[in-house]
């Protein structure tokens, strides 16, 4: 290696850094949307890690150019895995976003703690168990302001 820096070390540090930052972000952020963003970052780190697992310096991309003299290629398998992982990630992300939209509509908040408390009190209410539920918390279906009352019946499925 002629260079001042070891490229593999840079890449490895980046991957670990992204994973760590992402996971720390998921654990610490107080906003549900930020949690999803942090998850995206962590996933990016994991993908980088996986590509790095098959990376060879001084090798070419895994596409045959001349049939007679195959050159040294980087490992194609991790690249195929990462293709899969990226698409899986975006699917989960879309799902998370649609959940967020619903939560925002029902609870009018995306604060992590607030949403969790609302959920807990709703679960407790649905179980009929005695839990000191403050009266302003919704017991049944969303009585919350963000949706005007005349639109309630237009929404599918959940209207009472």
């Amino acid at each position, binding site marked *: 290696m002629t260079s001042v820096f070891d*490229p593999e070390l840079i890449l490895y540090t980046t991957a670990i850094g992204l994973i760590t930052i992402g996971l720390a972000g998921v*654990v610490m952020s107080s906003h549900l949307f930020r949690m999803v963003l942090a998850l995206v970052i962590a996933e990016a780190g994991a993908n980088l890690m996986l590509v790095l697992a098959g990376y060879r310096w001084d090798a070419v991309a895994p596409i045959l150019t001349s049939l007679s003299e195959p050159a040294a290629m980087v490992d194609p398998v991790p690249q195929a895995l990462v293709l899969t992982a990226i698409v899986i990630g975006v699917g989960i992300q879309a799902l998370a976003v649609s959940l967020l939209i619903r939560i925002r509509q029902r609870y009018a908040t995306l604060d992590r703690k607030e949403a969790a408390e609302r959920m807990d009190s709703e679960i407790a209410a649905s179980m009929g168990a005695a839990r000191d539920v403050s009266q302003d918390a919704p017991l049944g279906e969303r009585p919350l302001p963000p949706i005007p009352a005349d639109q309630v019946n237009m929404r*599918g499925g959940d209207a009472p």
Partner: protein
Amino acid sequence: MGNLTGLLFAGGLGFMLLTLAGGLDFGTPPMLVGSEIQAHAPQQTGAVNIVTSVVLGYRAIDTLGELSILFAAAVSAGLILGRRHTTAGTQTKGGFILYTGGSLLFPLMMTIGFYIIFHGHLTPGGGFQGGVILAAAFFLPLLARPGARLHHKTLSLIEGFAGASFILVGLLAMMEGKAFLQPLLVQDTLGQLISAGTLPLLYLAVGLKVGAELASLLSRLIQTEAPQ
């Protein structure tokens, strides 16, 4: 307080993982499976792009699983966001540039999308990348004309049949007495557009499915009502 412990924990974790770097030599992977695949891929699958031969040949069932995951995500999003949409009022009409650009770009993007899909076994790219571009091509008119709607019926038809044809190609191989998802019709035309047997068919199925799924996902997102 919780933040501080979290930060310390994350820092410690990162440091621990970094020290592990000493145990690995990146840059010189063992390539136990990789080099075997490189040696055999052109003969066994007929694809010049070895990543494609891994994605659609050696690990085809992973790809099937991945398609299913995308499908599951789209179905779940449909379940969550419901069927009825209110499009009125929440969107502003696209400007002239967006409107004209959208109409101009649509055929161009379709061409590029299908080009990428059909050349997946020769050059970088393939069903996933092409599918995303197809989805973008269908999504553009939605941005330009807020009133426009995608045909969800058509989309779900494409989605279902594309996914089914991926499996059916696999089952076809079984009927020929081979293994499930084994590539068929490997001819000695390495490097040409029509080569690699069933792989381009599989990639076409993947591209159509991904495109239809993403288009319906995006349109669902854009058509749900925004809060005031």
